[in-house]
């Protein structure tokens, strides 16, 4: 494009429509124009990094959907949320032949004319011509659009940081204050970006006044420059207090939970019966139903520490090892590799041995991060083989060890977290030289390019420090990650364990821990993490502690005031049995095992740790393939195919008709209907039917002339295995 033609474009762009001029003249007080005209000197020039960028951020200009996108928008590229002020200053003041700022006629600058709607703008009108943001930009351009002193933000505080109110309608003005390294303290409320995690629960208006619309606990994040601060809102669920002073407490878990219930005015449901508790804890710790004989002994045991003894025996059982190997395998995305079945077998066997020996998870982590050698011999060497490359490796490390979704930081700094592109590619660089073939070794070649710099990324502990590029940085990463003063890994792990026991993490999702996604019980999360570290990163210790809390022992009875609670543990939450556990439970109650190709008869589903082992039943029940992420489990194909399978498929039907089934044996032994109902209730539900339930069943099962007793009993067992009390843990 030659000079003349682009001048032509500029002139065209700069001439406003006559109507626009009229419009502006009518709406602007002359005095304002006068003030502006008078301000020509350099006094009080805004600092670009800390005063101009926040205007753009607040207006949404550098959001991911607009000019903050990796590719920019309309050839105007800003760093996401102002992460790179130097580049942004360059883009605004110098790029595009400097047309974004017009020193001759500052108010005609594109940076003002487009967002304020004077010129056509793909992102609509986002900057009010009469607002302070427009004015601040205008003044800054008038004073020469300097970069300024590049001062740094040292403190950012919100008042109130936490707000509790009984009144849903009460408006709450928010205030944000910033302190910079030049000593200046400023009210930055109007430049702070407020984002409610749940926009239906809290709204914040243009004047930064908040209104809460729903009872409960909510979070709003406040962003200014690179700081993001969560603000907590609490409106109790009811108007009357509950007194929990007499409520039993085992330890800090119950203290923390009851503290929140007190604050939120949620009533606590009564304790669960022994039989309900036993079924729950046996399923959660071992993935199995309690044996009827164990339930009997437990019921008749009068000792006060019988629950502690039970938990001790559960966490010491082989079933515990099987079940937690499966859980760990899911978190680590363990799966078999094409043409290399040995790898997953060896990996799984190693994992199992670690759990069987109660090896601290810090030690397990260290081996996963640093192991090399023949992956058909060395189990943990397979950790990095579950992903395609060093970036995948970094993302897996992020999710499993840091509880962070680092993926965002591949293309730009994480908008809600502290992770930068340097962190992401730096972590990938730690694994860049790793050979991922059968023999896993640290090679001499391989690098990751940091797209920000275009240079090979420097190995780095994310968010902490560079590691340099001489040699194997994995050991240092591992040392940092497992250092007892570093609570990241501990926090992530105890949160997963909590989820396994309650069906919900203190932080959800469990692989997205960050300051802007706070825990429902932040203090409890810290205490659990401390306790975990102090007890040698022991899986068993933390699980046993949770299992013995009174919180865990609460019943699922829904009270008048706690029906709406889904995260504060005022009652037990019902949750579906995991696919493998349900399949095993069906096998146990019917007495007929599932068959898995390549595995001996009697192999339990929870032992099938390779999710690529073919099993249509497990797939339909919702098994996760682990090719993608499966922290939360995954449903395949919805409830209807699973239901059709339960109705017409072989998962249950084949077992009901089997000659070796429990039912066949009971019938052959001459048992009565009552005995058969009783037996199946105890096996499947962990308790006997009440006498009225039993009478009801005897009536329904009473034979009519034309029909087959066995078929009626089969249909009874079928309906039992399809009932919610059976298919759920509660």
């Amino acid at each position, binding site marked *: 494009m030659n000079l003349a033609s682009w001048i032509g*474009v500029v002139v065209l*762009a700069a*001439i*406003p*429509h006559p*109507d*626009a001029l*009229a*419009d502006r003249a009518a709406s602007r007080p002359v005095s304002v124009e006068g003030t502006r005209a008078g301000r020509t000197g350099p006094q009080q020039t805004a600092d670009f990094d800390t005063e101009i960028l926040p205007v753009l951020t607040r207006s949404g200009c550098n959001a*991911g*959907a607009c000019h903050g*996108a990796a*590719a920019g*928008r309309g050839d105007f590229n800003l760093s996401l949320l102002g992460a790179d002020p130097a580049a942004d200053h360059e883009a605004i003041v110098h790029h595009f032949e400097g047309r974004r700022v017009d020193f001759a006629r500052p108010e005609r600058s594109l940076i003002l004319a487009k967002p304020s*709607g*004077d*010129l*056509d*703008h*793909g992102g609509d*009108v986002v900057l009010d011509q009469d607002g302070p943001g427009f004015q601040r930009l205008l003044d800054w351009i008038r004073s020469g659009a300097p970069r300024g002193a590049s001062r740094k933000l040292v403190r950012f505080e919100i008042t109130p940081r936490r707000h509790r109110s009984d009144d849903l309608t009460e408006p709450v003005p928010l205030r944000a204050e910033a302190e910079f390294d030049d000593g200046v303290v400023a009210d930055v409320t109007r430049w702070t970006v407020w984002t409610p995690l*749940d926009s*239906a629960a809290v709204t914040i208006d243009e004047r930064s006044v908040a209104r809460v619309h*729903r009872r409960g606990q909510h979070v709003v994040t406040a962003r200014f420059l690179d700081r993001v601060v969560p603000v907590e809102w609490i409106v109790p669920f009811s108007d009357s207090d509950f007194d929990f002073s007499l409520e039993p407490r085992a330890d800090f878990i119950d203290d923390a939970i009851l503290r929140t219930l007190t604050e939120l005015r949620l009533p606590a449901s009564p304790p669960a019966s022994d039989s309900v508790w036993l079924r729950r804890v046996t399923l959660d710790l071992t993935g199995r139903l309690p044996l009827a004989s164990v339930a009997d002994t437990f019921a008749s045991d009068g000792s006060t520490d019988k629950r502690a003894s039970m938990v001790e025996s559960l966490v010491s059982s082989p079933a515990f090892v099987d079940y937690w190997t499966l859980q760990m395998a899911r978190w680590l995305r363990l799966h078999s590799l094409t043409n290399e079945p040995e790898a997953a077998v060896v990996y799984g066997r190693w994992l199992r041995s670690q759990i069987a020996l109660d090896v601290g998870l810090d030690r397990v982590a260290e081996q996963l991060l640093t192991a090399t050698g023949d992956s058909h011999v060395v189990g943990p060497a397979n950790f990095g083989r579950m992903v395609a490359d060093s970036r995948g490796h970094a993302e897996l490390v992020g999710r499993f060890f840091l509880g962070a979704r680092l993926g965002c930081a591949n293309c730009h700094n994480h908008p809600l977290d502290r992770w930068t592109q340097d962190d992401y590619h730096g972590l990938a660089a730690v694994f860049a030289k790793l050979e991922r073939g059968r023999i896993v070794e640290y090679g001499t070649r391989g690098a990751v390019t940091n797209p920000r710099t275009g240079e090979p990324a420097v190995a780095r502990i994310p968010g902490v420090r560079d590691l340099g590029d001489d040699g194997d940085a994995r050991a240092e990463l591992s040392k940092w990650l497992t250092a007892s003063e570093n609570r990241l890994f501990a926090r992530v792990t105890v949160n997963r364990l909590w989820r396994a026991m309650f069906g919900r993490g203190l932080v*959800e*999702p469990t692989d*997205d821990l960050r300051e802007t*996604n706070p825990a429902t019980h932040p203090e409890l999360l810290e205490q659990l993490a401390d306790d975990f570290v102090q007890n040698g990163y022991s899986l068993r210790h933390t699980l046993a502690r949770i299992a013995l809390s009174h919180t865990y022992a609460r019943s699922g*009875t*829904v009270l008048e005031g706690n*029906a*709406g609670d*889904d995260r504060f543990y005022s009652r037990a939450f019902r949750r579906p049995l995991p696919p493998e556990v349900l399949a095993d439970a069906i096998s146990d109650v019917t007495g007929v095992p599932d068959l898995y190709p390549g595995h001996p008869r009697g192999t339990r589903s929870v032992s099938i740790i390779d999710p690529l082992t073919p099993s249509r039943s497990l797939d339909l029940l919702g098994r996760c393939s682990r090719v993608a992420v499966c922290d939360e489990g995954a*449903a395949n*194909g*919805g*409830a*209807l*195919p699973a*239901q*059709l*399978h339960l*109705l*017409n*498929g072989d998962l249950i*039907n*084949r077992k009901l008709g089997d000659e070796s089934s429990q039912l066949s044996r009971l019938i052959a032994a001459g048992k009565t209907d009552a005995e058969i109902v009783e037996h199946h209730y105890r096996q499947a539900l962990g308790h006997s039917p009440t006498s009225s*339930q039993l009478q*009801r069943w005897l009536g*329904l099962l009473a034979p009519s002339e034309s029909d087959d007793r066995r078929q*009626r009993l089969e*249909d*009874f067992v*079928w*309906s*039992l295995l*399809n*009932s*919610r*009390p059976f298919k759920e843990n509660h």
Partner: protein
Amino acid sequence: MSALSLRSDVRRLSRRDCVKVGSLATVGYGLGGLSLIDAWRGRAAAAGTLAAAKAKACILLWLDGGPSHLETFDPKPEAPAEVRGPFRPMRTPISGIEISELLPRTASIVDKLAIVRSMTSPLGEHGLANHYLMTGYQSSPVLQYPSYGSVVSHLGPPATQLPSHIAIPESRAFGAGFLGSEHDPFVTGGDPSKADFQVRDLDFFPGVDESRIRRRREYLAEFDAMQSAIEARAPAADPAFEQAFRMVTSAQAKAAFDLSAEPASIRARYGPKMFGQSCLLARRLVERGVPFVSVLNVGWDTHTGLVLQLRDGFAGAKVGVGLVPTFDQGFSALIEDLDQRGMLEETLVVAMGEFGRTPKINTGGGRDHWPRVFSVVMAGAGIPGGQVIGASDRVGESPRDRPVTPSDLARTIYTLLGIHPDRELLTSDGRPVSVNQGGKVIRELV
């Protein structure tokens, strides 16, 4: 810098209205004299009650992975070679509309289609983009939004023997979200083009007849009743079970999935591939009253080898059987078949993926993810055919005018289906969430 249209005196009127009026004047899509007044009237109508919607059903053809807009509905013959790509555009009976030469059958029915060429979204990752295109909402950490079919299943008439939301042969991850799993799509599984195609577990297990299925239902109700006694909000019966029960006890439901009942000529018209036969099955289901059917067509994530993947299908193919020719046959057959049966007026057909592809061809001869501009094609439901809405720029990189967001599209789809976009849905904890938020109806389609 083509869009330096100056304005300011019409600030109360949205920019989009202006652009539309402008483009009608200058480009002339043949809509007839739609004036500014009409645009205002249209807005007023949308704010109030819905005009009687014509569509009773929707078929969503999901082109999974993100189809290249440049090799389908938005060719750029004037662009530099690295953008233009290996294929040429072809003319259609509607003057001014050209689409890729790989779509000859579709070209002949362009008079029934509305092509939106200015779709735009910020999300270039499959999962996030799927969610946005299938729900009209960007994903949120606090709420799982329901996809179109699930909203239809929830708000539409109660399911009969057949589920209200069916996916052929599989479904992409996004189901019912907060509406609950009973509104998840029913996934047929299998391959409708295979002779032995049947929906799994639809027939009784040997030895279990209908009377026993009825008895099992009766027994199950006993357990449900016991459950209700201890749990205040327990549902009376498991909706998934009830739906399964209705299906397996209905001969008509089973027959709906039987493609062998179709004449050979019809089957041949849809083509031998899974996609075509899935389209045919979709038509059978809609014919039998299913209000929402999606057809999954995978493989559009063409990072490499455009010619092989999009046209040929396999190396050395004499007749292209790749993604685009396969789509061309199935899609055009579906539209014509619906039209000939008089069903097109009452059936909305949408063909789309989660985003477009990068304008510049990469070093592997493919194109990468590109959400900033892409195309969506719609037909039926009374949509005026033979029109193009919006345009991308010279190289297919950004919307040139009339940007349409997935949220706008969602609002349009719901409106066409007679679902008021501002209608509120309730989450499990009683929170109201509107069917669509923030979208603007694509006026030319409604």
